[in-house]
């Protein structure tokens, strides 16, 4: 690891074959989730397999595991702010749906309040 940059990222072939196999396996699991009922269990599995696959690709195939922290944090740090965007847009999406249901559709339950529109 210490002289990884003198000769470039040179690692034994075995690790690539192991990760390759794991990626196939995880893809098969991902595909299998499609046969489950929609719900929290299925979503949790989808996210788990997704994160594992992404992790293996970045860490091993893209060699991030063997890079120095200066590069790792310059690349993997900034995307964390995207979670703020995702959070804001999730709240906004819910709010938009609520207002659409409230103003642009038949009232689901007679609330009296909806008749005003």
């Amino acid at each position, binding site marked *: 690891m210490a002289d990884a940059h003198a000769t470039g990222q040179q690692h034994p072939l075995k690790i690539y074959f192991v990760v390759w196999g794991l990626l196939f396996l995880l893809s098969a699991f991902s595909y299998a989730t499609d046969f489950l009922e929609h719900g929290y269990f299925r979503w949790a599995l989808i996210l788990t397999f*997704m994160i594992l696959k992404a992790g293996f*690709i970045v860490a091993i195939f893209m060699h991030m595991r063997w890079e*120095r922290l200066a590069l790792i944090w310059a690349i993997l740090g900034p995307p964390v702010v995207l979670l703020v965007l995702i959070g804001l847009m999730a709240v*906004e999406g819910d709010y938009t749906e609520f207002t659409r249901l409230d103003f642009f559709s038949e009232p689901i339950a007679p609330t009296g309040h909806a008749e005003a529109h």
Partner: protein
Amino acid sequence: MAHSETTTAPGSIEPGWQTFVHDWSADKQTFHVPWGKAMMWIFLLSDTFIFTCFLTGYMNVRLSTPVPWPNPSEVFALEVFGVSVPLLLIGIMTFDLITSSGTMALAVNYGYRRDRGRAAALMFITAAIGAIFVGMQAFEWSKLIIEEGIRPWGNPMGASQFGAAFFMITGFHGLHVSAGVVYLTIVGMKVLRGDYEKKGYEIVEIVGLYWHFVDLVWVFIFAFFYLW
């Protein structure tokens, strides 16, 4: 890559955070990698933001529509011998990209071993598998547009935003795959010709970073668009 002014040589063993402070605090080179590789990483970082914006936009329209979202499992099902198999083509496309990721990783390894024949051959195989992916995508788009009547502004199955999100996200990803096929072919030919014998084979790793990123994006599209 050695810097005489530094007290500890880059790449020597220091505990993690000390290297971090050391690399950023002195008036010197921060990333101890070839500049092309650092630039590719920064480009991929910007691409991460673009794809996240697309996927976030998709999340937003899907959350905000009161009309039911078309079930991707049914929309992307294929008939095989009269039996409808859900998401079949998408599954095959996923395995196709994973396969190409493996051949790309091997190409990088053989590049650094200076085995340029094998490195170039593996790059051409990777490009061919990528071209197959684009071909399957063209088939998928044609089926959706012609047979299912899905348009960016509406479709017969449900929420009209489905087409806009689908064509934008998979279209932009397909464009990346196509560009990758061209990139791999050009660099592969230069590798085969021996253009990098003096410079070294970092270029294969740089192309590899791009290619693995394309696969990485597909992992997220597969999870959020096709499976969710």
